[in-house]
């Protein structure tokens, strides 16, 4: 007899990050959910480069790809909701559970009928879809597309709001008297290793990097905080990936490590151009957090990982 079914769903544009992500899920989260009596299926959506995802890297997973009605990763969220499951666990491509028993410990909260979801990580007031465990029946009651982002009040510029994926659904659930539970940020900080913007900077290099010269693209690191975070985190993930798999991460056209993102040397050089004290301090804080995250993942692998030298002189280090 099968227990309740859960689909763990995650969209990925790059096979190397998906490989690292799936390694963690297959070893940690999926077995923990099974031990709790759940029938688990892991679905990896290949948002691009579908033919580069080696099935041998994803034993036991279902590999999906864009098609009619599922044209990109945001439509995939709704497609995953339609799968035969009692729970849907949406996970970001660059999010890892350091403690896989922790999300499992929240499952009894669904005994309360009005609980629609648990958000383990949020970056705004809304739950996001970074690590969102949903009761599928509750979300299926909502108008489709359920998880799509939106702009509201576009005609009134001062009050225009950009709703992120899952935000509109959260509001509609609240209007129906449903509840979304939130993990305490401090608790999540200890149990989740998450990275930011790692796919966006690679996709940007892929989509428009060829329209700029190399240094021009790399200059985005000093101009846009989000690009700095993504470039830094990719360098960390690249170190771990190289240690675990012995292969370059985010390779460029010639196979050079991080050539598809921003190389470690270029990250350091561009960070030197950050003059705004507040931005520098925010980035320093963020980098320290990322350092802790990658070291926790390395510890799970039993690796004593040397951190790449990414900070310019004078920047705070651990």
């Amino acid at each position: 007899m099968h227990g309740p079914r859960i689909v763990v769903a995650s969209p990925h544009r790059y096979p190397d990050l998906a490989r690292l992500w799936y390694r963690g899920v297959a070893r940690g989260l999926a077995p923990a959910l099974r031990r709790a009596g759940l029938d688990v299926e892991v679905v990896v959506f290949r948002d691009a480069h579908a033919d580069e995802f080696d099935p041998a890297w994803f034993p036991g997973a279902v590999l999906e790809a864009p098609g009619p009605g599922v044209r990109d990763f945001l439509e995939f969220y709704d497609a995953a909701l339609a799968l035969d499951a009692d729970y849907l666990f949406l996970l970001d491509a660059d999010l890892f559970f350091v403690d896989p028993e922790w999300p499992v410990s929240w499952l009894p909260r669904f005994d309360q009928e009005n609980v629609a979801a648990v958000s383990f990580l949020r970056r705004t007031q809304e739950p996001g879809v970074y690590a969102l465990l949903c009761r599928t029946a509750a979300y299926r009651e909502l108008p489709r597309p359920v998880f799509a982002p939106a702009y509201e009040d576009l005609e009134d510029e001062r009050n225009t709001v950009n709703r992120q994926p899952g935000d509109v659904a959260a509001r509609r659930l609240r209007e129906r008297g449903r509840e979304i539970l939130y993990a305490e940020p401090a608790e999540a900080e200890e149990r989740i290793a998450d990275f930011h913007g790692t796919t966006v900077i690679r996709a940007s290099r892929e989509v428009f990097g060829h329209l700029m010269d190399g240094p021009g693209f790399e200059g985005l690191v000093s101009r846009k905080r989000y690009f700095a975070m993504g470039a830094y985190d990719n360098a960390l993930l690249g170190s771990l990936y190289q240690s675990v798999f012995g292969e370059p991460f985010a390779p460029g056209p010639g196979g050079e490590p991080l050539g598809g993102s921003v190389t470690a040397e270029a990250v350091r050089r561009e960070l030197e151009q950050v003059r705004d004290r507040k931005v520098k301090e925010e980035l320093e804080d963020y980098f320290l957090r990322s350092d802790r995250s990658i070291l926790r993942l390395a510890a799970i692998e039993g690796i004593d990982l040397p951190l790449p030298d990414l900070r310019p002189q004078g920047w705070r280090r651990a």
Partner: protein
Amino acid sequence: MTQAVDTTRVLGPGEFYYKETFGPGTVCRGAVLLECEWDGGIVESGALMGVIFRSGDFRGGTFWGGVFLGGTWTDGVWESGFDHAGRYRPRTDHP
């Protein structure tokens, strides 16, 4: 004899613009625009990321993650974005 003055501004390959506004008489021919506003003019090629497209003609290039409030979509690559109603339109589903 009066000589015609060419007021067209061309945004060419290798050029990058961040949080700038472009009006009629501008042609994007290979530039990258990040979080800019486009209010008139023609996009022939290049990439517009997070751009508010108010008016003009999009004839080629990539539109990614912006809002297409008005204007004409003739051709190009629609990676993702929002239409004038704020509705999300996924890859290939251009206005």
